[in-house]
């Protein structure tokens, strides 16, 4: 056997593994992203602490995006509920957590409850708001539901933004507050810090035995003295475990009798109804579960990840990000959701933050004009660097939105089913592919055979 043949065999078997095993697919994608950002760290001459920091960011953003995208996929991919109020439900989760756990003496005052109560409370509050939304909204057409959910998300944001509830007193004389436009920053810090520090609120309080051992290892063996990057990386890994748990939960839900009814509703609600299923109940439960997960994602992302919540973080742009991630992954597929979240977080969110540094370092661009005219004016004289400087230093975030918007249009025109949305998830409890039905060829074919799934793509 010559080496070419050997390689192509290895490649084929690897491709087969990717198609068969979702875990392999996700792990391969993550390995590629880690390698990409390792390369970026190397190009930018980061030291080891900087590289650990980048890898921590990759893990964190991949995990939080995957989490929200999974929750949205439950709404849209499984139950066909077109919810574009994601930012609002995330805000409810994290704000409830912050208001429950912030110290009563702080500004704004909170209730001072333990973190675990805060997290559960945030999820419950998001689920309840979801219930309030879902009860009436289910009677609406999909496009009306979209308008209602985006209106509710804006109502939520404007309520948190309003000075009226900046601080207020509950009937029992207990003071509470949303902090108005400034938000809340005094809730307990990331619980992961408790692994390393005696007092999780302060890095100066001294380290726990684990902290001493881990920090000592990094300092003595690897020469990394910034303990914060180790804490962040740990948090990212904890979030990865959370994503795994949620994935397992949703996979179980999807394969349970409950999930089979959901898939039936998605395919044809009237059929499900005429089989005696109370479809509204199923939809409400699904909507609440998805909203609770969005609330959890809000807590883990904006709460413990960012360390402060403020209303501006929950603008409709956030919803838009999650949406494009689910469309990249393909609505209806949990693995696709994780993959879509990872692709969006790394290639469309994180990468553009490092791109200007790389380009500027490579091409030595110094110009930094602050208006478009000042940037294009010099082109007449053959000077292109002011325009590049303007794009890179002043307007890259705006251009990212433009690019992502165009990408969304492109996807809707050319690949509305996303990366993995073409997979037809059977509603049957037993594996139909195991010798019962021939599936030869169908796996490598990106479009499903028309006869097997006449309405699937249109439904999404």
């Amino acid at each position, binding site marked *: 056997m010559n080496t070419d043949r050997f390689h192509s065999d290895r490649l084929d078997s690897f491709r087969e593994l990717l198609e068969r095993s979702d875990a392999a697919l996700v792990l391969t994608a993550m390995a590629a992203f880690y390698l990409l950002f390792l390369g970026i760290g190397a190009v930018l001459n980061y030291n080891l602490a900087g590289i650990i920091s980048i890898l921590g960011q990759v893990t964190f953003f991949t995990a939080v995006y995957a989490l929200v995208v999974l929750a949205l996929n439950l709404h849209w991919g499984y139950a066909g509920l*077109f919810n574009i109020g994601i930012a609002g439900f995330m805000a409810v989760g994290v704000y409830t957590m912050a208001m429950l756990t912030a110290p009563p003496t702080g500004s704004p005052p909170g209730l001072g409850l333990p973190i675990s109560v805060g997290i559960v409370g945030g999820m419950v509050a998001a689920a309840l708001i979801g219930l309030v939304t879902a009860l009436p909204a289910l009677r609406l057409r999909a496009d009306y539901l979209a308008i209602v959910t985006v*209106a*509710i998300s804006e109502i939520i944001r404007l309520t948190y933004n309003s000075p009226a509830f900046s601080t207020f007193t509950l009937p029992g004389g207990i003071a509470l507050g949303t902090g108005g436009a400034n938000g809340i920053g005094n809730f307990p810090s990331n619980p992961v810090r408790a692994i390393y520090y005696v007092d999780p609120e302060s890095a100066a309080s001294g380290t726990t035995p684990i902290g001493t051992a881990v920090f000592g290892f990094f300092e003595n063996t690897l020469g990394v003295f910034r303990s914060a990057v180790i804490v962040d990386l740990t948090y990212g890994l904890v979030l990865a475990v959370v994503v795994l748990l949620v994935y397992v939960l949703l996979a179980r839900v999807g394969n349970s009798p409950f999930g089979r009814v959901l898939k039936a509703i998605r395919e044809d609600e009237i059929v499900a109804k005429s089989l005696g299923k109370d479809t509204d109940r199923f939809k409400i439960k699904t909507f609440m579960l998805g909203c609770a997960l969005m609330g959890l994602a809000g807590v883990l992302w904006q709460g413990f990840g960012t360390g402060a919540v403020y209303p501006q973080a929950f603008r409709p742009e956030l919803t838009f990000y999650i949406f494009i991630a689910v469309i990249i992954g393909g609505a209806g597929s949990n693995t696709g959701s994780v993959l879509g979240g990872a692709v969006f977080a790394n290639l469309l969110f994180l990468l553009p933050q490092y791109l200007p540094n790389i380009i500027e370092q490579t091409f030595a661009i110094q110009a930094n004009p602050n208006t478009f005219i000042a940037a294009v004016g010099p082109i007449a004289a053959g000077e292109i660097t002011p325009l590049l400087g303007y794009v890179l230093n002043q307007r890259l975030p705006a251009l990212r939105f433009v690019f992502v918007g165009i990408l969304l249009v492109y996807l*809707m025109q050319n690949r509305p089913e996303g990366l993995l949305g073409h997979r037809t998830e059977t509603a049957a409890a037993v594996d139909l592919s195991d010798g019962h039905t021939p599936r030869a060829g169908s796996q490598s074919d990106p479009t499903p055979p028309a006869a097997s799934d006449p309405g699937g793509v249109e439904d999404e």
Partner: protein
Amino acid sequence: MVPYARGRRLLRDQPGLVVVAAAALLLVGDLFAKLLGGGLTPARFGGFIWDGLVIGLLIGLAGIGLSLTYSILGFANFAHGDYISWGAFSGWAVAYLLAGIDRYAAGGLLLIGAGDGPAPGDVGVSITNTPLSIVAGLVVAVAFTVGVSLAVDRLVYRPIRNADGITLLIASIGVAFALRYLIVFFFYSGRQGVTDISRVPSYDIGGVVINAHELTIVVVGLALMVGVHFLLQRTKLGKAMRAMADNRDLAQVTGIPVEGVIRTTWILGGGLAGAAGYLVVLTQGTIAYDLGWLLLLLIFAAVIMGGIGSVYGAIVGGLVIGLASRLSLIWLTGDLSSFAEPVAFGLMIFVLLFRPEGIFGGVSTA
């Protein structure tokens, strides 16, 4: 006996509607109590009504286009708000340029004072000070937005003309973000003053203060609405649009030039959106890249309230939403005044829940 039975049936079938109606009655009663008791002066009340009419007229103007595209193309166009923003920016760029070209460099004027460009007070744009530049800006706003909406239709919507409403809706969200952040790319992301409000004359009519810019808006807005009315009534266009909203295939086989009507719809809707955006800046005095997006939900509220597809419904719905958002300030005082917008959103949700075909019965009058 009969009306009694009817009332009981209403209570049983639509308890929510009864609650909402009761709440509305309560508010109207409280309003009269406030007016008679002196808690609310007639002048203040008149001021709220006037403000509501001005903003309502603009919402209605912008809503006509949204309503037409919603019914004829079958999707909720989330990019409509950003057509409005582009109308505002393109129009005011030209108005600024014409008003200040004799004193300032063209670049800073075209970017409406971006970076260290000229300040609004120095340029002095207002309807009394520089009427020609204001009119020229309006014309450019309309023309430019028509161009944008036709280009977007050609590039984005036409290739997926027969896709379902949700696919088109998602595509329109992509268009919305691309258009919105293109404004940030060329102009700026903050909110900036534009008109020179200090030199605009205002008139006191029975205690209600009306300034010349608001009068301009009402005159231009009403003129455009009358124009649309005649266009749809006196030409075959209105009938063709109604036919297409009803059944596009049937319209096509009866010889209606479908693509031509769609193009006319975009020209009409885009032009009105651009005019509305330009005029919104005239009343607010400031311009921001997301001004259209902030209006979009109110416009959706107006369109849904008036019944999708109905031009007159959109106008009336706009007035209702405008009035509701301003009149709510009678009760929402102090810190609560930030809830004027949520009130309008809430109103829309109520209409969707209890009367999704619109309060005017959803009769398409195009």
